[in-house]
């Protein structure tokens, strides 16, 4: 748990670090790109100003009266110079300042077709202040960051004039800037979502793991407890733990039953030997007494029938002993390849008189009439007979009992379904316990013996819930053939 916490904290810190570093890198790259572009533009403007200076000097050298021209004329002449000069600097506009007046402005590479000759009014104050800076310190410079573009102004001063140039950088803050800003915002949102998601995962995991821990602790003392099932992977773990606990409960139930059956078997074996011999003696004596009474004149018929009653009860005790002996350490069942349908039919035929007496229909349905399985025919007959007897006792008159033989991948199942009231839920877990019965005349051994016999054949017997009536299902493994 502690290791998981550390790992999650590490993941969280890593996510925060990555987001922060990405944001810093993007901001730096944006600013870096802007710096590079502005820096390049400054160099271009410096070169343009140097060229303007050179041409001014050459013109002044060639004609000394040129510098004394009136402003209007000087403006025309200087514009000719600046046009010819700035034609080699695309996107650059500029001119001169003489005696504090801007003269000779031109923008020869302006896209309109006609060279622009009017100083841009929007930037005029900044141009003039840049020129003033140049007049004071020899060089002036401005970088104006607008909402749509960046304007770079550069001015350089000589003795009697200033050459100045200007360039607009439209792409730096327009769409490209918007894209970068959008990218940055997206990145920050993604980072936040990542951090929040990680935090939510951490909290959810911690809570889920704590629940599983406390549930496991409770399971140590409370076998009936089921872990609460959450969604996701933790839910899968809870479900797996619950399955394991369920399997454990079933195994413990089976083990208890096996222990009980084993104890009963051992007791039954010893009791059967001890009781059967006296019972046989009693029966023989009763039969002998009945014969003697029958041969003696004047004896009442009622007394003979009383003896029959005693003999009948002795027979019933014998039958009970036979059931008890089924728990004895029996020899290995006689497993043979058998057709199942004939065994089922034989059982039905045996009980047909009782069924007819109560007007109960017993029907057989088989998906595969030739189905074979490796079984002990006597065991299976006894099991089916027990189940049919129970069903006959449970169904009302004119009820029905259905036997359904189904072949499946792992073997065969025989469903014994009746239209009786079914088994109440609170009694189901005791169904296969020995001596457990709800009928006054029952021994409570039928289902317990049946389960034992089916288990000996490698199969299972269970009560199936759902629907009306009761359904017992015998699972038999497929034969080797």
């Amino acid at each position, binding site marked *: 748990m502690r290791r998981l916490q550390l790992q999650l904290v590490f993941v969280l810190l890593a996510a925060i670090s990555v987001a922060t570093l990405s944001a810093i890198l993007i901001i730096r790259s944006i600013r870096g790109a802007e710096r590079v572009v502005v820096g390049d533009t400054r160099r271009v403007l410096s070169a343009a100003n140097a060229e303007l200076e050179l*041409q001014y000097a*050459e013109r002044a050298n060639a*004609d000394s009266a040129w510098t004394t*021209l*009136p*402003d*209007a*004329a000087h*403006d*025309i*002449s200087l*514009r*000719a*110079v600046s*046009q*010819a000069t700035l*034609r080699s600097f695309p996107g650059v506009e500029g001119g001169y300042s003489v005696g504090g007046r801007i003269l000779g402005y031109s923008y020869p590479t302006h896209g309109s077709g006609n*060279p622009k000759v009017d100083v841009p009014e929007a930037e005029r104050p900044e141009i003039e202040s840049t020129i003033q800076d140049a007049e004071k310190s020899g060089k002036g410079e401005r970088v104006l960051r607008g909402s749509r573009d960046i304007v770079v102004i550069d001015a350089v001063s000589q003795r009697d004039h200033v050459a100045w140039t200007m360039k607009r950088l439209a792409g730096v803050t327009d769409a490209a800037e918007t894209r970068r800003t959008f990218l940055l915002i997206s990145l920050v949102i993604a980072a936040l979502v990542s951090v929040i998601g990680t935090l939510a995962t951490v909290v959810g995991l911690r809570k889920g793991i704590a629940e599983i821990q406390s549930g496991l602790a409770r399971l140590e003392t409370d076998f009936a407890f089921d872990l609460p099932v959450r969604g996701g992977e933790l839910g899968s773990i809870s479900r797996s733990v619950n399955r394991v606990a369920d399997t454990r409960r079933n195994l413990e139930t089976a083990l208890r039953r096996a222990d009980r059956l084993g104890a009963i078997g051992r007791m039954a074996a010893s009791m059967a030997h001890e009781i059967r011999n006296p019972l046989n003696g009693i029966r023989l004596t009763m039969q002998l007494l009945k014969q003697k009474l029958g041969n003696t004149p004047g004896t009442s018929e009622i007394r003979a029938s009383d003896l029959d009653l005693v003999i009948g009860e002795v027979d019933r005790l014998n039958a009970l002993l036979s059931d008890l002996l089924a728990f004895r350490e029996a020899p290995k069942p006689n497993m043979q390849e058998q057709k199942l349908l004939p065994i089922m039919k034989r059982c039905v035929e045996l009980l047909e008189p009782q069924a007819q007496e109560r007007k109960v229909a017993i029907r057989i349905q088989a998906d595969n009439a030739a189905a074979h399985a490796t079984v002990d025919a006597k065991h299976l007959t006894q099991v089916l007979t027990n189940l049919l007897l129970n069903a006959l006792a449970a169904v009302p008159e004119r009820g029905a009992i259905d036997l359904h033989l189904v072949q499946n991948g792992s073997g065969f199942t025989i469903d014994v379904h009746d239209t009786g009231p079914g088994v109440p839920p609170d009694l189901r877990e005791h169904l296969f316990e020995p001596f457990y019965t709800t009928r006054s005349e029952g021994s409570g051994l039928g289902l317990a013996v049946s389960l034992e016999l089916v288990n000996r054949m490698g199969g299972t017997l269970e009560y199936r819930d759902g629907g009306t009536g009761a359904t017992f299902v015998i699972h038999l493994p497929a034969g080797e053939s």
Partner: protein
Amino acid sequence: MLAKMYLEKSESLKFSSPFAATRILGAADALIRAVEHQQHLDQKDGPPPPNSAEITRHVDRIYFRLQQADYFVKQSGDPNAQTIADFARQYYQGALRASDKGDLRTADECAKSTDELMRALENLALSTASPPRPSPDPRKQ
């Protein structure tokens, strides 16, 4: 012919627009000088040409001046300005060819003619400028 016409025009403007008259007079003077340089070639007189390096620098300089020709033509609004500009370009080509051939004298005179023709064009353009304001009379203050 052009020079004479501009001399007459200058004379006519001498009183009404003295600044424009001065500029047009300058244009006429430049045209005459351009012609004189060509006459130097025909008569094989005139000063000796400078050295090759200096002529090369001169040719480069007039190339830059020629870049201003279209602006001056447009600014002047003079119907003959384009003809003057065309002549200037022809002389520049002559100077360039002569310089390449090593004919320094021809290159020098053609370059000078180009210079003068550009000066004429510039003066015609400047003649359109509004006249300078007269200096305030200190006695009226």
